């Protein structure tokens, strides 16, 4: 029963699909330890992801012997319909305070340290806080001390990030510091982990499976896709935390709403290793789409790539569409056969990125989807078609944050046209 309690505390789970025998669950329900929740509420909302009735799909159900609603939004976690039930632990028993260790010997820059202290102050008065920091400013390190403070007072913490690769990058760093803490890492297809997690590191999607669970919620890259796009994920953050639990948002490009709506705020505008964010160099690249489709690389771009190859500098080449990448990758491979294309659906994505880190792959051709996951020392970046919608200001700043780490040089640019418009895109968020 202890294991069931650990599993179901703060969680909502499809009754038929838990890792526990049905008989044990039935008994816990009978004893009142476990509460059943209808899959679709009276108000015709999905109980797990809170999707509203207009977006639910109705069909003739053989189990209901009539109309039944199901939710397509969170379908991949097992279908929720009018005839399914979710379960949760009714009244979690208070957990005794335990000692956590804090194995971190790094030190913070003055601006990091100030931000860290400001976050701790916000937490002491239960106030939400925004860490507004450029890429490479060492946002994660700023969180370490506040995390430790929260653990010491027995708080259950969730760190949510928009995508799996961000979660996978974050998780080992947190685990290495809090060695006595039970930490679960959750993403689509993650292996099951035992015990009651004091820290949950999860993709935002996984938050659907929590309810009233966390005393502290940290939302990393709060600006990032898909969090900013999907109101359901915002609702998931609110649902997963306890009603009065504060949220710490971490963002390099927060929206005006987020800035205005969050009472506490810290800003870090210097890069962690003391270098300012690289300033992009703009260049024109006329008719690049036509040229690439006609099987030739524009001269300027070819020169840029050849320079990277001769200097053995790893590079990322961003193109605006997957189609264009697929069409042009044979051309790039003519310059060096080891150059690879990589996109979000690529099963070999991890290997290719590792290859870039290790110098086996000289360069990757990609679209915007990857830019947040990669940290490669001295990587050189070119954004082709930076005027395209897909490279919005947030994406461009993120991309520039990836370039030139650990090295003073960087390259950026290779635009097609409308430079003025583009400068607007760059400058606006910096002024704000």
């Amino acid at each position, binding site marked *: 029963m202890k294991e069931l309690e650990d599993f179901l505390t703060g969680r909502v789970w499809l009754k038929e699909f838990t890792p526990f025998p049905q008989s044990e669950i039935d008994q816990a329900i009978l004893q009142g330890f476990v509460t059943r929740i209808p899959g679709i509420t009276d108000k015709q909302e999905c109980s797990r992801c809170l999707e509203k009735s207009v977006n639910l*799909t109705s069909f003739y*159900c*053989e189990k*209901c012997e009539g109309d*039944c609603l199901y939710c*397509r939004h969170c*379908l*991949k976690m097992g*279908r929720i319909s009018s005839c399914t039930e979710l379960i949760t632990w009714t009244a979690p028993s208070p957990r005794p305070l335990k000692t956590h260790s804090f194995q971190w010997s790094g030190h913070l820059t003055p601006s990091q340290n100030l931000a860290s202290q400001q976050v701790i102050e916000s937490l002491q008065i239960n106030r939400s806080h925004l860490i507004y920091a450029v890429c490479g400013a060492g946002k994660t390190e700023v969180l370490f001390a506040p995390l430790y403070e929260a653990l010491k007072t027995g708080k259950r913490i969730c760190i949510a990030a928009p995508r799996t690769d961000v979660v996978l990058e974050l998780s080992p760093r947190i685990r290495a510091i809090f060695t006595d803490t039970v930490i679960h890492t959750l993403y689509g297809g993650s292996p099951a982990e035992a015990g009651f997690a004091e820290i949950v590191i999860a993709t935002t999607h996984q938050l659907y499976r929590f309810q009233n669970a966390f005393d502290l919620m940290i939302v990393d890259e709060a600006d990032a896709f898909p969090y900013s796009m999907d109101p359901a994920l915002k609702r998931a953050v609110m649902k997963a935390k306890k009603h009065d639990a504060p949220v710490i948002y971490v963002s390099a490009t927060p929206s005006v709403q987020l800035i205005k709506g969050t009472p506490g705020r810290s800003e870090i505008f210097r890069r962690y290793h003391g270098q300012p964010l690289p300033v992009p160099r703009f260049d024109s690249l006329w008719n690049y789409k036509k040229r690439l489709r006609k099987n030739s690389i524009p001269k300027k771009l070819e020169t840029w790539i050849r320079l990277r190859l001769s200097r053995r500098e790893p590079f990322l080449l961003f193109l605006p569409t997957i189609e264009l990448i697929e069409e042009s990758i044979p051309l790039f491979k003519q310059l060096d056969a080891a150059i690879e294309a990589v996109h979000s*659906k690529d099963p070999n994505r991890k290997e290719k990125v590792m290859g870039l880190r290790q110098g086996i792959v000289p360069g990757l051709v990609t679209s915007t989807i990857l830019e947040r996951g990669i940290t490669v020392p001295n990587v050189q970046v070119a954004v082709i078609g930076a005027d395209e919608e897909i490279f919005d200001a947030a994406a461009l700043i993120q991309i520039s944050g990836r370039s030139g780490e650990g090295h003073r040089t960087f390259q950026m640019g290779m635009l097609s046209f409308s430079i003025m418009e583009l400068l607007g895109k760059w400058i606006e968020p910096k002024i704000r």
Partner: protein
Amino acid sequence: MQASWRSLFMNDLDEAVCAKCKAEFESITGNTCLYCDASGEGVCADCMYWEQTEYAGLIAKGRCLYRYNEGMQSYFHQYKFLQDVILSEVFAKEMNHALAKVDAVIVPIPMNPKKLKERTFAQVDSLLESARLPFHHFLIKNEDVQGTKSKMERMASSPLFHWNGETVPKKIILVDDLYTTGTTMRHAAKVLKDAGADEIELFCLIRG
């Protein structure tokens, strides 16, 4: 990140699948087996085997629409196992095109009634309904017999279906979602033939 079928539909559930996703499905063309549309010249090895058993001569011919490639696998997984009922619409046009003018009564492969209640919908019936094709059931699926025998042995020894007692038409086209070993279809055809059918054809959405 996998292709999301949700994004294909957005709010307009009547819309067909987007061209890009549809391009991932592979239609069956070229030389294929007379009975089951396996690739290759003449009758395939599996069907050759069936034609030497008590199930010989039951089937006039057979047809499948798509190969079971990666795109189809993810479609089928989402439709059948994640129970995304609305995906029955995806092949409505193609199914209708293939079967609307067929001069035979469409008989879907049924689900066991108990299992149907559990799974909430019958995949094959839903495909046909979405394609606006009339159909009629003459078969009842027997409950899976649990025991020490392997699944293959069980299927070989005990019948998978029985007749529901209604008068069976002379010309029948049996419809299923996925054709793999042919066991289901051969068993179904035998029951129908014994109940009075003359000519039986097979149709499957996917050839596994």
